[in-house]
């Protein structure tokens, strides 16, 4: 599979990265080079092989349903979550007006 300018433009838009026409153009051969190379994986016979789900065989731990048990993962820290915000007002984050 190889990509063309339209595909690269579509991917860039999905990834929310603004690319000019020239950048899209330049990216096409680069991505195609990488894709052609990774496609050698298609040679590998994976019949009956499960995709890896956990690199070290392990299952999910479940935590108890306790509020703010650990301050590092609890709430009630509005100042901290807003501290680095490019725009924050009245306790909210601000973004350009969205029309739904």
């Amino acid at each position, binding site marked *: 599979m190889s990509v063309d300018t339209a595909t690269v433009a579509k991917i860039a838009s999905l990834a929310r990265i603004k690319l000019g026409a020239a950048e899209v153009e330049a990216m096409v051969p680069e991505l195609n080079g990488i894709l052609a190379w990774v496609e050698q994986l298609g040679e590998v016979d994976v019949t009956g092989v499960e995709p890896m789900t*956990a690199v070290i065989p392990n299952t*999910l731990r479940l*935590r108890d*349903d306790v509020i703010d048990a650990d301050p590092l993962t609890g709430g009630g820290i509005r100042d901290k*979550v807003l501290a680095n915000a490019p725009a924050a007002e009245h306790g909210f984050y601000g973004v350009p*007006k969205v029309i*739904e």
Partner: protein
Amino acid sequence: MSDSTYRIQGATGEWEVVIGLEVHAQVTSNSKLFSGAATQFGAEPNAQVSLVDAAMPGMLPVLNKECIRQAVRTGMAIDAQINTWSRFDRKNYFYADLPQGYQISQLYHPLVGEGSLTVDADEKAGIPEAKVIGIERIHVEQDAGKLMHDQHPTMSYVDLNRSGVALMEIVSRPDMRSPAEAGAYVAKLRQILRYVGSCDGNMDQGSMRCDVNVSVRKPGDEFGTRTETKNVNSVRFVMATIEHEASRQVDVLESGGKIVQETRLFDPTTGTTRSMRSKEDAHDYRYFPDPDLLPLVLDGAFLEDCRNSLPELPDAKRARYEGELGLSAYNAAVLTADVETARWFELLLGETATAQGKQPADVAKQAANWLISELFGALNKLGKDLETSPVSPSAGAELLALVGKGTISGSIAKQVLEKMLETGDGAAAIVEREGLKQESDTGAIEAKVDDILAANADKVEQYRGGKEALFGFFVGQTMKAMQGKANPQVVNEILKVKLG
């Protein structure tokens, strides 16, 4: 399975509507699905947001056990397959209410698989027969935050309090064929969730929201292209959405147009749906397993605990009320409609049986009738419900015991209830204070009966001449003379003897 005969009359003939619902139900839990922040409704903006919920660099999710337990119990309540191996996937898209840039959800291996629920027959609503609605899956996922558009002229405000709250997405099969069926499905689902305790069902607080998938077709044709109307938050609006969307689609198709698969929004003020601009983007969510989380494997003990903690579910309870307690179908349905009503009734029933030294089945009708025809009406007048009722189940049982033992009559009981609601005092105290005790002394009643028969000799003549309907007149007169306190049974007996 019987399909409803709901049809839309178009210019080209009849159309059938096909409906599938995705219900997002907020899981009842103290803390969020993957963080320790609180989930309570109505907090100050961003007050219940952790570093994890705000997707700060390097933050990681850790799964809340209670959310999984509640989703599994819900699955068990709809007889669904519980998948002991499931995992979480990322659904990638950009929006200001989605801090991670992805929602942690379950696409490939959901926690709960195939199940179903039964929508009851409701002739009046246009559901001629009970119908089984398939449920494809329940998966667990994160809720998004909230955007406020009307607080600032050029900005939208973002509140992440809901961000990361646990949701169950309950996905039905496209098995519904009328707005009534869809409405009944949502109501039934809400009823079950509230019984299980896995969701409070508060639709006006957003605890339950429906994505309504609607398509139309000529009866017997293949499924048509569907639209999805997002986040509809009441049973009534679900039905309105379907009605509007179905007729809109018929109009489009009949005028030669095509239905575009798209996301729409319901506007409650106009009762119409419109295309959602913010979701115009091509849907390519790039789902893949969340590498921050491992497979979720449930063991037998966990499942056993989930199953053992399931309450009696509404259908079973209703059947038991009819069968074991001998209640009418109507009363059984009313009493089981909501888990709180059933709970209240069962407390009342237990106390009533104890107070009268009888088996529950022997006092069930008395308790049910009183609750439905007396207490509900009285509370309604006061603008209250069972939750805010000044009369407790045990106070009600005390009142019913006075009736059951013949201490007061049914009509006096009504007066006593009013006083109880007014003052909060107990039934026995009120009866004692107000002298409302029923007269069962045959001598006193006999004396009054004699007076009445003497004063109405003409009517006695007519009665004996065959006008038996006059019996009620004599009863009424006697009761009146006794100020309502005579035991009606004793009155009846004495009158029968005296009138011959």
